[in-house]
Each structure stands twice: as structure tokens, then as C-alpha cells.
């Protein structure tokens, strides 16, 4: 499935004063493409993701999924949150099975799918644990497995690795890029980490500081297996750093 974000603007009214969070954003995400949205904090990138997820209505403009306008959240768009948001009363396996149970998938089929995705994220040994017993990295693996097991065509990720330590972060980036090569999805990935964007994205959408607009779209032509220390990688990193810095500087003017 593809996503078209068409002329989306969003403003919030707090205590009588209206301020714009997003202005006239257009993005086309092709099927099985991974797009990173990069920008300084407060630029509205999470707002954009929430609009595509259907959690927030845009003030103007629209979001099309496969040519049809969305009207709310749906199982066609899986979401992975920065805060993991697992169901604490369900085990790891129960969390991964949640969407399948909603669809009344027969139990043997369901168990097969759950095992497949737990294996994919390396958590088969922890299927019966509860979320309180897991580390942050493990929780986010469960959240990714939960989103994928529901078989959405689109996965929306809102700074999914933002709360993790640097090492765990890179491990999960590796896992995501491996999963993407095995079972490719259309992915919209919000991050403020430049390295993460260069490592994962087919294209990077750089946003301006608030109100967020698209500053530039940078295609990353690095192939599938990326080396974080290769010269081209570093080049992309410095180019994106320059673009983001201009925006951060504007905030401090």
C-alpha cells in the first residue's frame, strides 16, 4: 500500500490562541518504501504521524491510503510508539496475539503467527513473561512484533528507539532493517536521529522548525546493507546535519 499526504496542515488552539504545527505538507510514500521524517523537536513530525495514523484529524488537507481517504485509525496502519504502549495485563505472546484475536483468527493459526514474529524479534524464550519483567529494548521488540503480526501493509513508527540506550538502539535498527528485507512494509518512521535516518531510510524528509513544513527530501542511495562507518554514509550524515542545524538555529534566533 502507498500513502499520499496531500496539503496537510494542522493547528492547535490552546487557551484562545491558535498556533500552527504543520503547514501544507505533501509526501508520497511508495509501496514498501521506508521514509524517515527528520526534524528538530517541536517541528510537528509526531503530529504528522498521528494524522496519518488517524489519531488526529488534519485541519486541512487529507491522507490517502491506496487512493482512499482515511477517516480514523485502522488495522491497515500498524503503529509503534516511543513509549512501547504494551498491554501490561497480557503476556508477551498475548500482546502479539492481540490484533489476531480481534480478527478471530483460529487459535492454532494464531499461535503459529505469534511464534513466527516472536522468533523474528528473538523473544521466543520470553513468550510467557509480562511487560513489567522486560527491559526497554525487549518491550520495543514486543511492540514491533505486535504491529507486524497484525499484518498491516503500513507501519508507522514514532521515534520507536528514542527511549533506548545507544547500543540497544543500533541493535534494533539492525533488526528493523533485516525484517524490512525479509517482509517489506511501507514504513513512515519519525526520528530526530540523523544516523538512524541515514541507516534506515530510502528517503529522508527533512522538516523545518515549527510550524513544520517540508524543507527538503533527501534520497539515500546506499543499498540494503549499510555500513555506519563508510565514507558515503558519513557524507549523508553531514549533509543532513547541515540541513537540520539550520532549522535548530532558527529556533534559537
Amino acid at each position, binding site marked *: 500500500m502507498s500513502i499520499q499526504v496531500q496539503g496537510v496542515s494542522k493547528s492547535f488552539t490552546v487557551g484562545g490562541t491558535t498556533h500552527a504545527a504543520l503547514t501544507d505538507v505533501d509526501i508520497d510514500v511508495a509501496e514498501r518504501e521506508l521514509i524517515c521524517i527528520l526534524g528538530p523537536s517541536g517541528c510537528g513530525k509526531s503530529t504528522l504521524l498521528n494524522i496519518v495514523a488517524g*489519531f488526529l484529524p488534519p485541519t486541512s488537507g487529507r491522507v490517502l491510503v491506496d487512493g482512499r481517504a482515511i477517516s480514523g485509525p485502522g*488495522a491497515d496502519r500498524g*503503529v509503534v510508539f516511543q*513509549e512501547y504502549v504494551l498491554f501490561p*495485563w497480557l503476556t508477551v505472546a498475548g500482546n502479539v496475539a492481540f*490484533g489476531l484475536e*480481534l480478527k478471530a483468527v483460529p487459535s492454532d493459526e494464531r499461535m503459529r503467527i505469534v511464534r513466527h514474529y516472536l522468533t523474528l524479534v528473538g523473544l521466543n524464550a520470553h513468550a510467557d513473561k509480562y511487560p513489567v519483567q522486560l527491559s526497554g529494548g525487549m518491550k520495543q521488540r514486543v511492540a514491533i512484533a505486535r*504491529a507486524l503480526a497484525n499484518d498491516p501493509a503500513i507501519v508507522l513508527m514514532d521515534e520507536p528507539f528514542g527511549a533506548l540506550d545507544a547500543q540497544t538502539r543500533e541493535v534494533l535498527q539492525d533488526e528493523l532493517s533485516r525484517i524490512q528485507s525479509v517482509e517489506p512494509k511501507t514504513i513512515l518512521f519519525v526520528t530526530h536521529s540523523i544516523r538512524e535516518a541515514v541507516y534506515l531510510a530510502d528517503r529522508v524528509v527533512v522538516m523545518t522548525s515549527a510550524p513544520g513544513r517540508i524543507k527538503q527530501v533527501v534520497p539515500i542511495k546506499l543499498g540494503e546493507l549499510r555500513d555506519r562507518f563508510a565514507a558515503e554514509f558519513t557524507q549523508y550524515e553531514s549533509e543532513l546535519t547541515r540541513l537540520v542545524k539550520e532549522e535548530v538555529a532558527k529556533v534559537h534566533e
Partner: protein
Amino acid sequence: MMEWGLRGPTLARRRALGMRVGAIALFLASWALVAGVVEALGLVNPIFLPGPWLVIGKVVELALNGQLWAHVGATLQRVALGFSSGAVLALAVGLPAGHFRSVRRAVEPVVELLRPIPPLAMLPLFVVWIGIGEESKVGFITYATFFPMFLTTVHAVRRIDPLLVRAAESLGARPRQLFFRVLLPAALPEILTGMRLGLALSFFVIVISEFIGAEHGLGYLINDGRNFFLVPQMLGAAVVLGLLGYAGNALVRLLERRTLRWQHPA
């Protein structure tokens, strides 16, 4: 090393239990001593302060001749009916009121109007409206326990992390599924706390409603004891009420531990 590690907590627990039993024994001993001294010196009429042996003896006597069970049964049945209908009502109104602002706006003003009135002030009204039979006693427990359980339910639903709802919706949850699979389990810990409050309140109010026009029940037994100056019977019924309340609380706690295992898995 392992053995010490394993025995440590058991020893500590055994000691804690020992101290509890000791405290109760000490209390009973002081009571017995005071009652004994009062009786020996003839300070006041010993009928006012029977020793623990008389109270326990009375309870045993009533248990053996079967009277106690009829009273316990009557009280427990009223509590069970009144409390469970109060709980069902509190959930049926409280869950939607917590989730939907429109429902909350419609219900809350009425609840806030009635809630500050001490429920006991309404008891005579219940008697006037429904009579002195079982219905008014059960109905009164329902009325009195509704408020704390309603409020905790509304609060429980309102403080559910909205991201849990978003996560469920983006996994395809329809409103009904959202309600039973997310809102209810997420609110359950606080709902159960509210139920423990409600159960304690049930025992609180049933005694008083059994003072008024009852022929059975532990409250009746106390009131009957007052009429005929049977202090051991009054205290005995109070002790049994205490034990029932304790058991009820322990039962809900057990239910909490069972259903909320996810909070502290082994």
C-alpha cells in the same frame, strides 16, 4: 548460602505472624484482666463488661444451637445481594461515564448532589418507600455502596493511558472490543480497590438497617441484646461481624492477587 537465602524471608514472616498473634493474645489478656478485676472488686455491675470467655462462650452457644447461622446467613445474603447489585450498577454507569464525556456530564451532577448526604440519613426514607422487608435492606446497601464504587470506576477509566486506546484502535479494535479488552482490564486494579471499599461499607450499613425492623441478622442480634441487656450477645455479634468483614476483605484481596498477577509476576 542458598539455604540461608531461602530461610531468611520465611523466618521474618514467621516472626511477623508471631507478633500479630502475640498482640491479639495480649489484647484478650488485658480485656480478661480488666473484666476480672471489675468483677472481683464489684466496681461496676459486671453485666456491662463481660470477659472475653463469656463473649466467646455466647458465640459458641449460638453456633451450637444453630441460631448464629440463621443470623449470619441473613446478614450475608443481604450483603451479597446489595453489594453485588451496587457493584454491577457502579460498573454499568461508571465505565461509560469514565469513557464518554457526555455521559459523565449527564450523570455526575446528580451523583455529586446525592453523594454528600450521608447514606444513613436516607435509611428511614428507604423504609418509608420500600418498607421494612428484605428489599429495603438490600436496596439500601446498593444505594450506599454505589457511590464509592462509581467514583473509583470513573476515576479508573479516566486515568487509563490514552495511548493504550490508540494502540488497540490501530490494531483494529472496534468500540465493543476496546471496552472489554482494553478499558475494563486497564481499569481493573482501581475498580477492585473500590470494591473493597464498597464491601466494607456494606457491612457498615447493613448493621444499622438491621436495627430497624429485622427478625434476623447480626444487626438484629445486637439490637435484641440491647433490649434485653445481653451484653455478651451484643459483643459476640460484633465479633462475628468483624470476622465476616475481615474474611470479605481477604476474599477480594485474593481475587486481586489472582487477576492482577501481571503487576507482580513471580
